[in-house]
């Protein structure tokens, strides 16, 4: 529908619209007032969700429309890449609701689930505010603007666009940065799975079953009934539900139980070997069928959780703001600024989305104006997932939350010691409650399961069991939630390793040409192994380093992901200025500035803070000095472990510095290109020359 018909709408429509929007604004204000005024009594999670939905509606209706019409000037007279290159395979003009679903399924993963759960240690209020403000002014803007830029450039990728608009050096820097974040992201996701499945035969069994299930589906869809996705997926979903149900019997079985019980380091090796093999198997066998399964579950869970929160209306038991905003929290250390803003990446703003917005999505867009709904709207939807994850973490007993998310170095590894430490922080909890919670969800222990998945699973299990099935189903829903996260993490590990392989081949090709040939089996194996070794090293160290784990790697992930967002927004700013729309450059420049301030501060603090709980180098020095002096610092148990802690932290510190340097280089190129563009009188952005739809009139590019 074009804006022409909208603006000339009849009077009654306008009146109705005015009344409806006044209502939305009033409801949003009411929900926020409810949250703000009930500071001393529990607030229902339904209020939080309502407030969020109102903010999304208002932002979509007003801010995204402003961006679409004034800043980007979307033009339906221009043919989109999908129409110009329609090949029935990659480029296909697609209904906008379908593109929305596709785009949402591609951007939503474990990220928006993990970040908010970790950030909940500071209370629900700071996290909620950052998720909402971040998505409206940064995250959704980034996804939308990058999608627009890619549509205007034949669906080119972020890396290619950086090269076109900012030069080859900036392009190379962006490629290295993207590879870095890919490695870190895979490591963080891999660790989440490992932490969730350690010593958990029920969980390990159900996740292991997904592999043969997907393979049967793959063979079915390729050879038995080609392309019958519905039949194969129905089979897959039924098998998975049965596997979750029978998992409890496997776990209690005398022979099968121990066969599926693994320690975290063993599982780390398992996922490393899995990643190496899976990413070299043909895509139809494992990757594609499991991707369908995971998309089914993803959409189903998001819908079910939203319904569950409204049906149950659970109270938020975490405080609005906890004392850990001062930086002494056990889940991640560091004060609210800047660490909250890098811990919650996906859900507020995620650089990784710029790769999707310049990947398959721009090749499916039917009309330029749909980019608003798909790009901006899709990110609002992801933010909604983050809000629900935050709710799930905050409806838990805070004592349980801290028991699950604090590292063993802080709360020990017995329920007695954990209850003692957590009660001393002011959240009174008994060892019995901890043991009872574990047995309610069918696990032996819930201690030290940082990483979001298990916490979310307990919260979800509580909400879902109260909404559907009753207490007896809590263990079922817990393992359902674990399976659901593991499923798309394993898919991401597989797909991410393949993407990382191409990037490594791109880079290696510059050093030694034959290694850049993507058809060469030798080059493929070398690049895959390098990629797996990269993330696998972090996963393994996260399980054996007494101070390592999700709590260490997540800040690194946040910094690199927000850095990529910074690069994407810098590109967007350069393009706006090159289009001679510097009047509106603040739309991308303001979030860029905020992200740069956060990532550079956080990067600097993570690397060079003298507080060993925050600074990588400070911690490394402390341990290597002590090791040299022959003393052993807890929780390390030997000189070898001390040296391992020191070495790991030197690596993490070096990576952080590298990310900071990359961002600074990109900022330099943005300033340089922008100054150049400001001096020229005509637009200089390298858009593909427009082709005009029959009967349409393209607007002048200025």
């Amino acid at each position, binding site marked *: *529908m074009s804006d022409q018909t909208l603006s000339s709408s009849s009077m009654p429509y306008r009146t109705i619209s005015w009344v409806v929007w006044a209502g939305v604004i009033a409801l949003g204000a009411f929900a926020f007032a409810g949250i703000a005024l009930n500071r001393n009594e529990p607030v229902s999670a339904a209020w939080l969700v309502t407030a969020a939905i109102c903010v999304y509606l208002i932002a979509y209706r007003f801010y995204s429309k402003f961006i679409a019409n004034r800043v980007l000037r979307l033009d339906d007279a221009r043919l989109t890449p999908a129409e110009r290159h329609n090949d029935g395979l990659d480029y*296909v003009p*697609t209904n906008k609701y379908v593109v929305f679903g596709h785009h949402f399924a591609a951007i939503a993963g474990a990220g928006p689930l993990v970040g908010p759960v970790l950030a909940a240690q500071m209370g629900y209020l700071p996290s909620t505010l950052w998720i909402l403000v971040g998505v409206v002014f940064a995250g959704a803007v980034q996804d939308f603007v990058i999608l627009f830029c890619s549509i205007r450039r034949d669906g080119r990728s972020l890396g290619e666009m950086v090269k076109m608009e900012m030069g080859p050096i900036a392009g190379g820097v962006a490629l290295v940065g993207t590879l870095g974040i890919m490695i870190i992201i895979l490591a963080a996701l891999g660790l989440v799975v490992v932490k969730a499945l350690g010593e958990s035969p029920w969980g390990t069994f159900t996740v292991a079953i997904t592999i043969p299930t997907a393979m049967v589906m793959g063979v079915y869809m390729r050879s038995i009934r080609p392309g019958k996705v519905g039949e194969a*997926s129905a089979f897959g979903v039924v098998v998975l539900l049965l596997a979750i149900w029978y998992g409890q019997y496997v776990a209690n079985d005398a022979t099968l139980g121990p066969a599926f019980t693994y320690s975290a380091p063993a599982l780390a090796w398992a996922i490393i070997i899995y990643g190496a093999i899976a990413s070299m198997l043909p895509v139809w066998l494992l990757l594609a069928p499991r991707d369908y399964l995971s*998309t089914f579950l993803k959409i189903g869970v998001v819908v079910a959780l939203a319904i569950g929160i409204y049906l149950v209306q659970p109270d938020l038991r975490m405080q609005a703001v906890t004392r850990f905003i001062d930086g002494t929290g056990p889940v991640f250390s560091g004060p609210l600024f800047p660490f909250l803003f890098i811990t919650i990446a996906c859900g507020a703003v995620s650089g990784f989305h710029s790769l999707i917005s310049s990947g398959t999505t721009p090749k499916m867009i039917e009309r330029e104006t749909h980019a608003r709904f798909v790009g901006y709207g899709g990110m609002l939807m992801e933010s909604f997932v983050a809000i629900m994850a935050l709710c799930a973490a905050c409806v838990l007993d805070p004592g349980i939350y801290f028991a699950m998310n604090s590292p063993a170095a802080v709360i020990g590894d017995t329920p007695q010691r954990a209850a003692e430490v957590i009660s001393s922080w002011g959240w009174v909890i008994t060892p019995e409650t901890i043991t009872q919670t574990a047995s309610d969800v069918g696990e032996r222990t819930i201690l030290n399961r940082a990483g979001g998945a298990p916490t979310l699973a307990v919260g979800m299990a509580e909400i879902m069991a109260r909404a559907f099935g009753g207490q007896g189903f809590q263990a079922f829903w817990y393992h359902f939630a674990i399976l659901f996260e593991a499923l798309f993490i394993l898919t991401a590990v597989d797909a991410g390793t393949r993407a990382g392989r191409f990037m490594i081949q791109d880079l290696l090709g510059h050093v030694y040409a034959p290694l850049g040939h993507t058809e060469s089996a030798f080059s493929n194996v070398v690049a895959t192994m390098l990629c797996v070794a990269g993330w696998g090293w972090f996963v393994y160290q996260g399980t054996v380093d007494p101070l390592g784990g999700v709590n260490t790697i997540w800040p690194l992930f946040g910094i690199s992901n927000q850095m990529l967002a910074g690069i994407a927004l810098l590109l967007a700013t350069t393009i706006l200025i090159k289009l001679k729309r510097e009047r509106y450059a603040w739309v991308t420049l303001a979030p860029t500035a905020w992200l740069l301030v956060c990532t550079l501060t956080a990067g600097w603090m993570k690397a060079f803070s003298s507080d060993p709980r925050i600074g990588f180098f400070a911690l490394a020095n402390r341990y290597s000095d002590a090791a040299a002096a022959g003393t052993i610092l807890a929780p390390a148990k030997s000189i070898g472990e001390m040296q391992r802690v020191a070495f790991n932290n030197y690596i993490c510190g070096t990576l952080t510095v590298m990310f900071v340097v990359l961002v600074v280089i990109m900022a330099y190129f943005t300033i340089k290109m922008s100054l150049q563009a400001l001096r020229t009188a005509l637009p200089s952005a390298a858009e593909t020359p427009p082709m005009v739809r029959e009967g349409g009139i393209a607007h002048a590019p200025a």
Partner: protein
Amino acid sequence: MLLRDVLKPALSCTESTGLKVEECVACARSAASQIRGGWLRILGAPDYRAYLAHHAANHPGSHPLSEREFVRTYIERRYNGRGARQCC
């Protein structure tokens, strides 16, 4: 605007049907096939019917790929292409 977009196809359907049963059935069929195609596309799964329609419209006279060939090419292109496809 969102609401009107959703209602438009449904409304146009009721306008054209009147009271004839065949038209209602045809309308429901086309709606079902649209939902099926849309769902496949959200999943990123191959949709052979859509491909045949595309082929008939754009390359009349040449032979389209068989369903088996199409499914293979599609999955290979989608998952073994360069670039990121799945997010964190």
